[in-house]
């Protein structure tokens, strides 16, 4: 094999680190994948309910109405799947990059249990009609302290890992993880306090909610996924990341502008004009770190693009990173009124959220999981075909879902803007696209059920006992 032959101590040290984080990371991954399966089924149901309210309309299933299944779906996707998968990846990356074994992993598992209890209470609360009806914060008010404490516990453990790091360069992924560690509690606490505990005017609550969505995307989901991309791209290529200057520019750029984003959603609304203006400018400024990150990844890959084909991790990460660039560029274009007016109040919101959470974040997480899990359980993924299935169904499902919601939303907003025709026209204008979205959801469900099944095989040690990794192309390399 063409690889350099690392010193045995090194290998054993890495293996020891992997062993120390095995339980918490696998716990986070499996519960995240289970929540993902729940959320994509709910996603399908809420999509069906949008255009055919009679779907599954039995008295015993009354709680699946759109008004409950939609927030339950988003809650399960963001808190059940995304953040848990992100935490699992962050724990593993942090331990690897600090070259430190984790102590007391049981605390992390306890935190993980609390997190899952919180999400479960939240989703059940929504189903029993106790939703707060605020986007991404729809869980009943009693739930957020549980999630906050559980996350903070993980943060403390990640910081102790960082404290015990081996001397040497602090790799860029570590910065991103530390960022996500600090920013989530700040954003989550602020949003909940100003919306649930000390609510101001309804307009201020709406602005806080929009800010929360923007900041969650730019300051929590993005850093977690970028930490993973920054690790796995050079790792699998076996060459250094292109430029430390670009890494620094990308990180600090995102750190500076990320917390200002979100409120551009309400441009033209009854807010002081500078609030949406500042957010709009922030998403335009965000192009700078996004360019830096994209160029950095691309230049690291130079000449080796065929690796994307054969390595599952590279493939998922590449799609995720591309979706990130796409998301940020589109958000910047959206800050301008001619496009923003067409995307403010329609299905396009769903397109953007899915592009961020599924297209960008989840794809990066899938890539990381395909790399990490074999090292934790000591066996290889059962088959490359299943990974390919997961990849293509996810990619095509996500692209068609985003495209359908985006175009449908444009059409719908255009109909909303017709002052002299009935509102019903706008709603029926979105209908064919909502049906298309339901079809795309079937793809997403198929792909993620396969993923959950495949991951379960690995967790129960039913993977291949082999020296050869599961590849999805024909190249010979590691990954």
């Amino acid at each position: 094999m063409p690889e350099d032959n690392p010193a045995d101590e090194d290998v054993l040290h890495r293996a020891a680190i992997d062993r120390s984080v095995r339980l918490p990371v696998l716990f986070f991954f499996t519960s995240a994948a289970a929540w993902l399966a729940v959320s994509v089924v709910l996603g399908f149901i809420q999509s069906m309910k949008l255009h055919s309210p009679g779907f599954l309309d039995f008295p015993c299933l009354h709680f699946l109405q759109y008004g409950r299944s939609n927030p339950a779906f988003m809650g399960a996707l963001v808190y059940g799947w995304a953040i848990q998968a992100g935490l699992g990846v962050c724990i593993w990356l942090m331990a690897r990059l600090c070259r430190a074994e984790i102590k007391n992993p049981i605390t992390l598992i306890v935190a993980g249990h609390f997190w899952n209890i919180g999400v479960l209470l939240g989703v059940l609360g929504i189903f029993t009609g106790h939703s707060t009806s605020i986007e991404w914060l729809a869980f009943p008010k009693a739930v957020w302290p549980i999630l906050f404490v559980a996350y903070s516990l993980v943060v403390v453990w990640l910081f102790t890992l960082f404290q015990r790091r081996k001397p040497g360069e602090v790799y860029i992924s570590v910065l991103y993880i530390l960022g996500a560690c600090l920013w989530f509690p700040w954003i989550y606490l602020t949003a909940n306090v100003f919306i649930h505990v000390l609510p101001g005017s309804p307009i201020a609550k709406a602005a806080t909610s929009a800010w929360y969505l923007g900041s969650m995307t730019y300051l929590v989901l993005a850093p977690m996924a970028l930490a993973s991309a920054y690790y796995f791209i050079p790792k699998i290529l076996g060459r250094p990341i292109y430029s430390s200057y670009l890494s620094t520019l990308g990180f600090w750029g995102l750190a500076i502008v990320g917390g200002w984003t979100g409120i551009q959603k309400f441009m033209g609304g009854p807010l002081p004009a500078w609030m949406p203006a500042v957010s709009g400018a922030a998403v335009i400024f965000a192009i700078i770190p996004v360019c830096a990150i994209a160029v950095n990844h691309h230049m690291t890959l130079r000449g080796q693009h065929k690796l994307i084909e054969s390595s599952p991790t590279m493939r998922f990460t590449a799609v995720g990173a591309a979706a990130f660039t796409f998301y940020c560029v589109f958000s910047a274009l959206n800050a301008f009124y001619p496009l923003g007016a067409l995307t403010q109040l329609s299905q396009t919101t769903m397109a953007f959220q899915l592009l961020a959470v599924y297209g960008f974040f989840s794809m990066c997480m899938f890539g990381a999981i395909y790399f990490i899990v074999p090292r934790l359980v000591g066996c290889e993924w059962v088959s490359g075909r299943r990974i390919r299935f997961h990849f293509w169904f996810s990619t095509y499902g996500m692209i068609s879902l985003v495209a359908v919601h985006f175009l449908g939303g444009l059409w719908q907003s255009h109909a909303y803007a017709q002052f002299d025709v009935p509102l019903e026209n706008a709603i029926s204008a979105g209908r064919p696209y909502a049906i298309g979205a339901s079809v795309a959801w079937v793809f997403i469900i198929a792909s993620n059920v396969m993923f959950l099944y495949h991951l379960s095989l690995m967790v129960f040690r039913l993977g291949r006992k082999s020296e050869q990794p599961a590849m999805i192309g024909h190249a010979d390399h590691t990954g």
Partner: protein
Amino acid sequence: MSDELQNHDYEHKTSVRDHGSVRREKQEPKTGLEPITLSLVAACAAALMIGGGYLGAKSGGFDFASTTVNGYVPDPPDIEIAAAELSELDKYLAGGEAVYKATCNGCHQVTGGGQGQIPPLVDAEWVTEGTERFAQIILNGMTGPISVNGKSFGSQMMPPQKGSLNDKQIAQVMSFVRHKFGGVTDIVVTKEMVAAAREKHGAQANINTVASLAAADSYLPGEQPEWLNPEPAEDAAPAAAEPEN
């Protein structure tokens, strides 16, 4: 391959051989030190310029009271109101309304209801019946006593208007008053009719009394104009109410 990589270090609980995936992976990533390219710097500068311009244009001077800024709130699109084209009749009556506002409504009021000793025009037989005596009153004025709608009026005098209004103005105002206050919507008074009245009565020096007026069934001679709908009953009724607005 597996033979030559076999680890014989029995002091470790696990050997390298047990960690196939860990062993075959590459070194932990490091960071290169390539410089930032000029084109990227230029792209960043462009993004800064655009974002700064955006902020300047949209922020409304960071004034908390300023909630709308040009470019945010769209102008409503040009809504096609079916702006009914004014008919010739409407234009004619609008001219009469203008004369009425300038000359008559100081005494007879906008509503045509009169005030005090000034008699009303609404449904008055002097308006709805013969046009000759109506024209006489306008041309040469009127003084009481006179009975209008069953009530007696007498102490006020209406001045002659023949010097201040021309034939067309008198014709229009008569048509307007008959349409609006008298409910006579199927015919109008033309300037030819008024010219005939002026020819007949224009030299009269005295102000009219009831005795000097023509009979109630005496209409001024003349044709109805060509533009008047031969069956105007349906169209003219709403049209008659519109000039108010």
